[in-house]
């Protein structure tokens, strides 16, 4: 019973005139996440691009802009307060954050909130770098990607940390015994809506990791945002799966993976990799290894 395009409500819960760059993936994702949750939602927004671009009263629902590190703590307070007042029923608490606020700075408070079993939906928009502050590397930056803190030159050739040691936020959430965690992509909004609807039905913490290719940070044409997101899934760089009470299932299986070059060549941050066959083979090996490791856990 997957979600169909014609069944989606057409009501928008965002005002127009946001400050996002042209072709922003977070706006595609946030639009559909709010659509899935409906108007009875409170948004807690950790610092990041999304907090900046929606600051001029963009959402039609209550919207809190909090610090990088304390969004899960704030949502815990709101959850408890509503419960004490007897008004918790029928309200969705949504935390939105970037990969910096989730995988690096806010990881401690997220871990605490999941451990306490607070009832909230955590959506992380992962653009693989700190775009709000100027494109520094983050815990989810892929191997050999150029960022402003991992430049390409004589001494450095992009992000040195290998693909296998990249932070896997879904697995970190699952290690807490979370009732529901999933990965999604802005390239597949119907799949994203389905994951969010499922998370909303779960009592307790839920985590959804949304892959969001950033045209500004990755050096792409703004029109290629969705194409890049879909290629990331088709090449196996991103695996869309869900974990329900510890049971794993691939939600979008890819029968034949495309070579990773097709995805990399869209992005200026990998220009030095595409030009160098040895580096390209290294990246392909890393992606293969990570892909195999994720699929091996499915059994």
């Amino acid at each position, binding site marked *: 019973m997957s979600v169909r395009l014609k069944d989606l409500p057409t009501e928008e819960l965002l005002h*127009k*005139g*946001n400050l*996002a760059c042209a072709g922003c993936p977070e*706006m595609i994702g946030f639009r559909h996440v709010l659509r899935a949750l409906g108007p009875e939602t409170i948004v807690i927004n950790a610092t990041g691009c999304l907090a900046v671009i929606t600051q001029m009263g963009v959402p039609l629902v209550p919207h809190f802009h909090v610090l990088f590190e304390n969004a899960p703590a704030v949502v815990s307070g709101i959850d408890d307060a509503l419960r004490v007042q007897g008004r918790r029923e029928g309200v969705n608490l949504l935390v939105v954050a970037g990969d910096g606020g989730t995988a690096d700075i806010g990881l401690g408070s997220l871990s605490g909130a999941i451990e306490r079993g607070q009832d909230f939906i955590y959506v992380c928009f992962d653009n693989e770098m700190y775009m709000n502050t100027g494109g520094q590397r983050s815990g989810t930056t892929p191997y050999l990607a150029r960022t402003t803190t991992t430049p390409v030159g004589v001494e450095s050739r992009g992000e040195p940390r290998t693909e296998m040691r990249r932070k896997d936020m879904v697995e970190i959430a699952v290690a807490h015994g979370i009732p529901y965690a999933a990965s999604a992509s802005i390239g597949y909004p*119907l799949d994203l809506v389905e994951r969010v609807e499922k998370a909303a039905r779960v009592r307790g913490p839920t985590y959804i990791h949304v892959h969001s290719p950033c045209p500004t940070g990755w050096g792409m044409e703004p*029109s290629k945002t969705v194409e890049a997101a879909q290629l990331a899934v088709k090449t196996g760089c991103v695996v869309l799966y869900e974990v329900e009470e510890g049971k794993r299932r691939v939600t979008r299986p890819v029968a034949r993976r495309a070579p990773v070059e097709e995805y990399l060549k869209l992005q200026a941050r990998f220009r030095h990799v595409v030009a160098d066959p040895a580096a390209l083979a290294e990246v392909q090996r890393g992606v293969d290894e990570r892909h195999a490791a994720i699929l091996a856990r499915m059994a």
Partner: protein
Amino acid sequence: MGLEKYEAFVRRARSTLTYDPGWSRENMTGAWRTMRPVRDAELCTSCALCWLFCPDACIAPVTFDVDLAYCKGCGICANECKVGAISMQREPE
């Protein structure tokens, strides 16, 4: 929207500390655009992919008319259209 009007908006935005809900609607982001999406109604199959993928919700759900007051001209709609019904045309100066 002319440049002068946009600059007046930026001055007002900088002079306020809080924004009421919907304040962003005064931010006519259509002024950023250099390329404009033009839809060929004959080729269009009403598949709604352009509506689904528009980051700024600038495409109406049933008529697929573009809201040019806010469209930033990113070109995702033209890139994702399976039948090539949307083309990007340069805005006049």
